[in-house]
């Protein structure tokens, strides 16, 4: 074993998160004072295994594996109430997005989550047609449902279609090529 000291400082987890939020507005996660406003104010906090304030504490403590194993950020409803109320001006909702991206890139998220597939399907759909198409989107979670719920969903969808609230065929926007070129500039995504 070599005992030579490495000159390169390893990138800490909190540093990785800071880089992730580099382009986002707001103050760095390290400015958190643990007041708990985000957790107390979160409308879906009851469903989270770890609420935002504790998640930030875990990031600060470098608990990378534990943070990536939580489901909290997949439950975030993006209501931005935490971001608006945070006394330290941290963009917590953006942090939740950042963590979602991070775990997708590293393919490190609980297997049974529908969030990652759902998000991926949604983005691909938008990139391909310029519009969201619910029947395709539904397949990302449809088969995880039990028989009863599946039936309920299908009935609901049929009713909506009959009323004209749900498109039967996927819609496309005009000048789709221009839109795709725009998207390519933003996201380095394949065809």
């Amino acid at each position: 074993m070599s005992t030579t000291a490495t000159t390169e400082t390893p990138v800490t987890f909190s540093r990785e998160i800071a880089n992730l939020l580099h382009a986002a507005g707001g103050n760095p996660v390290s400015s958190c004072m643990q007041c708990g406003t985000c957790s107390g104010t979160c409308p879906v906090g009851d469903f989270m295994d770890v609420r935002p304030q504790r998640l930030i504490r875990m990031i600060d403590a470098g608990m990378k594996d534990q943070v990536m194993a939580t489901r909290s950020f997949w439950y975030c409803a993006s209501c931005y109430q935490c971001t608006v109320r945070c006394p330290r001006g941290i963009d917590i909702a953006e942090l939740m997005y950042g963590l979602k991206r991070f775990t997708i890139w590293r393919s490190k998220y609980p297997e049974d989550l529908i969030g990652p597939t759902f998000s991926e399907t949604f983005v691909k759909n938008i990139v391909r047609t310029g519009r969201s198409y619910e029947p395709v989107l539904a397949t990302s979670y449809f088969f995880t449902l039990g028989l009863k719920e599946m039936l309920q969903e299908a009935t609901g969808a049929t009713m909506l279609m009959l009323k004209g609230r749900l498109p039967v065929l996927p819609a496309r926007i005009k000048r789709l090529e221009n839109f795709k070129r725009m998207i390519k500039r933003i996201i380095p995504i394949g065809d």
Partner: protein
Amino acid sequence: MANIKATEQPRIGVYICHCGHNIAATIDVAAVAKFAEKLPGVALARDYKYMCSAPGQDLIQSDIEGHKLNRVVVASCSPLLHEHTFRNATEKGGINPFLFQMVNIREHNSWVHTDRAIATEKAKAQVQGAIRRVAGHSALETKRVPIHPDVLVVGGGIAGIHAAMTLANAGKKVYLVEREPSIGGHMAKFDKTFPTLDCAACILTPKMSSVGSHPNITLWSYSEVAKVDGFVGNYTVQVKRKPRYINEDLCTGCQECISSCVFKEPKFPDEFNERLGKRRPVYIPFAQATPQVVLIDPEVCLNFKRQKGPNGEPVVGDKCKKTCVEACGENKAIDFTQKEEIKEIQVGTVIVATGFKTFDATRVPYFGYGKYPNVYTSLEVERLVNASGPTGGHVVLRDGKEPKTIAIAHCIGSRDENTNRHCSRVCCMYSLKLAHLLKEHTGAEIYNFYIDMRTPGKGFEEFYQSVAAEGVHFVRGKIADVYPEAGGTGKLIVQAEDTLLGRVRKQPVDMVVLAVGLEPQADAQDVRRMFNMSCGSEGFFLERHPKLAPVSTFTDGVFIAGACQSPKDIPDTVAQAGAAAAEAMALIDKGHVEQEPNTAFIIEDECSGCKSCVPLCPYTAITFDEAKKKAVINEALCKGCGTCVASCPSGSIKQNLFEDGEIFAEIEGVLAQV
């Protein structure tokens, strides 16, 4: 003043200060000294570890003697800190103190640069500028201006009261100006004071009445400072005395008029009781108000209300039975024709003690203040627990019920990027005090929702412990939401993450107390402009130095005390008020101030008499001599701002220490090759 132009050849001594590592770490001071040594006119150049130290100053003095120096340049820190020190050293060495020039190579150079080579080059350029400039300096004399011994104290809270009493007891004449009808400020509204729990009224009101009866204090309540002119030692101040429709000299404070008012029941919100109680149109703010003089609110008094002037202003009518005038009888103190009055006074020094205002809780709607009647601010609760308050000290909600559970929300309008970033410093302690008093009055379960408990004062931590021992609950987490409990129970739910428990607490309570933070007064900016002070980023008045001149401002002769400088508790406020009084006294007892000779002067032969400088002078120091048709500058009033110098079309106004030749020489020096 004689402007003695030096005729002899300049022999300049140049001193480069290391300031420990502050300068030497970024600038090669030895190289700068070596460079300076070779410049024309320089007799010697040295670098030294601390020029401001006694040996450093001695160095200048002995060099002046030993090397026949007739000019001195010191490159060190800001002139604000040590220009005075080095001028003194120069003078002690035997030459005129204004044959000295200071170069700031710390704030302007080493502290703001990182590249040593470039910083050193810059320092050389700065020093070269000063060397060329100082060669053209003339010997000048400081002038002495006498100080008027009277003092103006603005604000009659505990800070203003204490400062005024200290000065008055020392035999100084004090004008105490208070905006409200009575002095006492916020402290008069409090029930008990932390951490000793002594009753605020018991310790304050004797001081208030001493102010009212002190022969050396002129108390002007219900008045505001309208205009300030002049300079240290000689301020002319205009005070606006608002009409209270009562002749203060004739009113005996019997309050017969109040009980005989045509309004049988008090009907109008009472400002002193935070609008929780009611008062009549003729009223006295509270029982121990000083001065013991009633006042009439023209907005609601029938005699005014029923008649308005063309601009909507209240006009004396004849529509009321005026039972108050009847009750006043022979005293004849009620005067409906009273008008606003402007008083002009001369003072030498000013103490600004204008205090604070509490945070407006409606700015953060999710705490429910103004929406749910059982959400109170801490100042309202101070009145509720006060025996002389609107409920006589019975803590009851707006519906008359006594609360069984109470939540106290800390940090409302403090420590928050969305409202105020600063910690208001007193809220933790007053929340503990209110928790104790509310528990004492009602026996309720009390929950304190805090972020960090800050109890760093004398006896504060012990108080925290005793309140905790009484069974008050502490939850570490800021309240994130307040909403009514489902099912119409009338209770409110306070929702907060208990960060220590890792669970969301949804606590049903009868009453929510918002521990609102302290903010600068709404008109702090106007006051700041009037006294030519500075403000910090939060809007509190800025002290001259945070450690060494905590009650001085950047305007000589104007001092600050109390919460107008930053949030602070009563002990600190009183300490600061005493300090401000001592600083004012130091100036008064010295009897005079020395003024910088950087005044402007007119070269009479060249003045064309165009008068363009006259209206431009911000200090009205320039008058026009009609006989000679020339402008005249009053040296005592000139502050050396240079406005007239720049504006003179014929270039016939010059300014000491800033003559064109000196400035151009400095520019050339800075820009010349180094």
